[in-house]
């Protein structure tokens, strides 16, 4: 096995043997499904002038739970390095694998893998739950809302994109956690970065600025990948949006890697 392979295996063992990992992954899938179902269940066609005129993006509704579920991905990403600094095990880690780039790459690989697995479970369960709830709320095929199916083109893109979104958020958190070392600071920074822009944007009156914020903030841009209706009205397209988030994640990882390599452990 190569050095990187061994490092990945070591990191996987470390991640797997922490009780918090299991809980976080469960929370990731569970919160995604629960919030998605709650949101989907509270929307019906009665608040629209006509069922067909609702223009509700049902896929987006069903997958809206990732807004909360991503918290688990953030915490997991931050804890991967921040937890080691807090517990003081970083010295042992670097004693076993002195090449810091390899350590960070291995951590990124296992965090991404774990989040992708839990995210896939959460996304598929959300779509299944949405399928049941939406039909009951009047979003029927007769009204122009075909039942949700992961085999449908845009839905598949939204589902895959949502899983990638979660992975990128976790990597962003990993990068910030490595750069800041302190768990509290890292979690505050990442959650603020993700959540505050979507809230702030409601209070910005200027249309151009609102669009700019949505285009370049990681969460609104990244979640554009969930849209399946009125794509022309989005400030940013689905894949370019996810690309914006990827740039954030890459920048954070790069900053983390540079600081990790340069700094004393």
């Amino acid at each position, binding site marked *: 096995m190569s050095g990187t392979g061994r490092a990945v295996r070591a990191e996987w063992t470390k991640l797997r043997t922490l009780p918090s990992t299991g809980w976080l992954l469960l929370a990731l899938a569970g919160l995604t499904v629960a919030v998605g179902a709650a949101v989907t269940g509270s929307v019906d066609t009665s608040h629209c002038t006509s069922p067909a005129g609702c223009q509700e993006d049902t896929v987006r509704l069903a997958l809206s739970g990732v807004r909360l579920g991503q*918290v688990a991905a953030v915490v997991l990403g931050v804890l991967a390095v921040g937890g080691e600094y807090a517990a003081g095990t970083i010295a042992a880690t670097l004693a076993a694998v002195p090449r810091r780039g390899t350590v960070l790459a291995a951590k990124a690989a296992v965090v991404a893998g774990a989040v992708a697995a839990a995210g896939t479970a959460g996304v598929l369960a959300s779509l299944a739950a949405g399928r049941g709830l939406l039909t009951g709320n009047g979003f029927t095929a007769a009204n122009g809302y075909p039942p949700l199916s992961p085999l449908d083109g845009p839905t598949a893109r939204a589902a895959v994109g949502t899983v990638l979104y979660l992975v990128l958020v976790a990597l962003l958190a990993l990068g910030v956690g490595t750069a800041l070392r302190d768990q509290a600071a890292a979690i505050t920074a990442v959650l*603020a970065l993700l959540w*505050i822009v979507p809230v702030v944007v409601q209070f*910005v009156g200027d249309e151009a600025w609102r669009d700019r914020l949505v285009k370049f903030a990681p969460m609104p841009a990244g979640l554009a990948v969930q849209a399946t209706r009125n794509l022309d009205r989005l400030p940013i397209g689905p894949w370019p949006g996810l690309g914006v988030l990827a740039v954030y994640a890459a920048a954070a990882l790069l900053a983390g890697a540079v600081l990790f390599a340069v700094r004393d452990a």
Partner: protein
Amino acid sequence: MTPAKPAGAATAEPYRSTVQAEARDGFGRLLIAEWTKLRTVPRWTLTLLAAVLITVVVALLTAAGTESSGSGDRPVDSARRQIIDLGHYTYLPLGGDGSVVARVTSQQGGGGWAKAGLMIRGSAERATPYAALMVTPGHGVRLQTGYKGDGAGGGAGSAPRWLKLTRAGATVTGYESADGRGWRRVGSVRLKGLPPSALAGMFVAAPDETKVRRMFGGESVDGQPSVTRATFDHVSASPAPPGAQWRDRASPGGPAADPSMDGRTQAGGTFTLTGSGDVGPNEFADDTTRTTLTGVLIGQAAIVALAVLFVTSEYRRGMLRTTFAATPRRGRVLAAKAVVAGLAAMAAGLAAAFGAVLLAAPLQRSNGLSPPSLADGAVLRAVLGTAALLAVVAVFTVAVAVIVRRSAPAITVVLMVLLLPQIVATGLPLSAARWLERLTPAAGFAIQQTVVRFDRAIGPWTGFGVLCAYAAAAMAAALWLVRKRDT
């Protein structure tokens, strides 16, 4: 090594503390102790400072990026943008006390909130005091006044309907009748600032037909004027001013030239009024004050992190044992911690909110916007409320941190309950979103609102009260736990 001699000291005088006489206990000392803890960790004072700076910088950025969307070359007074004073008004002068009577015979168009009825108002100027008695197709007979949604109650009944509005001093009273003989009193209002010489007459008004599209992270409002038309007969004003002619006040800037949108026709004693636009609060006005204070959402994250660390750093390093060794009464320690964190957050909040409003003002002015004025009660409430909001958030955070004891989950939980409801709400229909913004701690942000908007979920003080209730509940749980737990 030789074993110790049995100490002759065993028989010595028992020791007495030399500083015992100077020692004092008390809550005040505890506050000083906790404040010393807070101020002596440099990165915590820097965090407080950062919270202020971020808030002000965000305010400056939003002020720089927002340009006046209104027409006209002079700043629009923010208080005036928050009201609508449109519709069509046909009036006679009313010198002193008197009354006006008319029958609304029919009403078409404009939706359930279309208004047709009588109005006494100070002048034809915009935004003068008024009292209006009206019939609406969907909401019965109503008496309305003011521009902040402070209309007096309504009732049943629709056109045709007799209406009567009388003025006695500053009090205007409305009556309605089905036949013009038996009158029912609808209500009365006191109009502050109603000049002795006022106007009395008929009016029609109809709110714009608006479509609100909400999707996660944003909403767009499209408005279209809707037109209403109503017919009046048996119109009389008493005392009838000799020789006075009916005059018209059309929607300012409205399409007065287009008789299908706005105008009056008269045939004998029968008047037909056509108009569009509403009278009352502008439910779609931008809340400039709230926009200016948006940065507090980011500053708040710093305060939350600080309040969490203020507690969890003691748990993590075992310093809490030293704290409880110095003050065994744990409830008081927790109370002192909460008070210190709250006051520090409040001080930061005051600096941030006043800084944001005052520093953003020149930028807003140069962009053609009228900055929020601290002389306005609602604005002052929003600014001071922001400081209070941060204080309560800090107390809530301290309590959550004591319950959870670890930084990462504590920060996550607090930011989640404060921010997430506001994000998820935008993706829900208004009815569901309102409940989310009423029942979660995020309701506290209502204290920042200075405009009653269509999507208002909860009043400023009620919302703040909800947050306070959460903080109190969390504090009670924390107090119970901290006394019960071993350290």
